């Protein structure tokens, strides 16, 4: 069961602490996740720690679900980094800036694994 959402990305403290440490387990834990509201969690039948597949017009990626307060229903957050960017549009519409926030996305619970950074980068090569 999936849900239509708006995806935003941004900084977090743990993401910032591991900026110079991106090939580490700590960075993976800090960034390969998706924060969402309890409502959206329920909608896709997921529990915290489950894997969630996020799909947009530009690609798909699997991340860990993290229930969080402060999110309105229909808005999900992935910390800025390779996982979020796997599904971000590059079209800058003549402004130079990709749209990292407010991307239309679909989410669903999945049993597929979360790719680590090396696996993720391999997809581009």
């Amino acid at each position: 069961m999936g849900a239509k959402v708006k995806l935003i990305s941004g900084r977090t403290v743990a993401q910032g602490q591991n900026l110079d440490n991106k090939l580490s387990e700590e960075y993976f834990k800090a960034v390969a996740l998706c924060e969402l509201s309890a409502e959206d969690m329920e909608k896709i039948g997921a529990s915290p720690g489950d894997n969630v597949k996020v799909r947009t017009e530009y690609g798909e990626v699997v991340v860990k679900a993290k229930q969080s307060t402060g999110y309105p229903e229909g808005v999900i957050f992935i910390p800025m980094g390779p996982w979020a960017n796997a599904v971000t549009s590059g079209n800058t519409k003549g402004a130079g800036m990709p749209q990292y926030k407010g991307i239309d996305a679909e989410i669903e619970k999945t049993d597929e694994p979360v790719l680590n950074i090396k696996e993720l980068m391999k997809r581009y090569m």
Partner: protein
Amino acid sequence: MVEITDVVCPLCGCVCDDIVVEVEDNRVTKVRGACAVGKSKLMGHGRIKSPAIRVNGALKECSYDEAIKKAAEILAGARRPLLYGWSSTVCEATKLGVCLAEEIGAVIDNTASVCHGPSVLAIQDVGLPSCTLGEVKNRASLIIYWGANPTAAHGNHMKRYSYIAKGYFLPGGKKDKKLVVVDVRETKTAKMADKFIQVEPGKDYLVLSALRAVLYGHEDVVPDNVGGVSKEDILEVANMMKEAPFGIIFFGMGVTQSRGRHNNIINAIQVTRAAHTHTKFNIMPMRGHYNVTGFNQVCTWETGFPFAVDLSRGFAWYNPGETSSTDLLIRRECDAALIIASDPGAHFPGESIKHLSKIPVIQIDPFANPTTEFADVVIPTAVSGVEAEGSVYRMDGIPLRLRKLVDTDYLSDEEVIQAILEEVRAIKSKEGE
């Protein structure tokens, strides 16, 4: 053990310069006064050990000389090279970077391209009524964070400069101030606010236009609900703005990276101008990297333009959307790239990375990261602000000098770019013969 005071933090655009660091055996062992993120940076992480060149798909260690030579060959032979990054290094390196770009007819661009580039475009349309952070500390009784979350991205910002800081005219600190937060989600920053405005994703532009109409005395035309925000809330914020003797909007990537992009910022600046008809109002971008501003400064005084400058025809052509890095990569325009002090592998949209991974890439950085996964030449350098000194610009344009805290055998960014430049010149003069 040596204690070093007044250390300048090489992490975010706050560039806190009151950090105390303890150094033992040429290593930073203790950090006081920095935020969690800044502390992590100063304490250090695992490093790239040696320069390397990719051979048959794998990176093979080599000497600095070999790596620099290879880098120069790639750049001198390229028809549309890109020099990208520059926001986590010092201005001295950037200056040489501009020179290199001229020499090889490259596009030079920094991370503002995917951060506050839209803010620059906005400033080019309407200007920027702003001030230094000390003005905010001493005078601002109303602070608005719009699409910005300093608790995550700028740990010391509120404490040193804004909501929590005590100032000359506001000796009570936050007791004397009001905090408004506008965001699509209720962040930690939002939880501290006197007034939190939750806007629907991608609708900031509409809320800003409504706010302007109200500030100019046309609340009658504003509908009851704008972008998920009630008219009542818009009127309340407008009143808070009018009544504050000195107010400021700090804005972040919540507005630069969402629908509307630079136009959201133009509108936010227009709101500031409208508020200025009633009182003193200012606006400031929450710049991310500690020297993202510095690159824009140097690039502006040297080329006339702040980022995304195309020097392929010998003169400077500036046109973000065309000459900005993600566009160049998605459009597959570039045939080589030098990436310094940044990590497009982690921070560019997948579509851009796809092309970047297919062309020759030179990476200059102290740390391995996703870009290293496909870089063809990897050149490790000293960590600026820890192992090398130099000039940087705070988010409000204040120039500070990073300090060198410990010794290193790594070359600095400046030295590496200088060496590449000399090597490129040697190749070009040979071609000329």
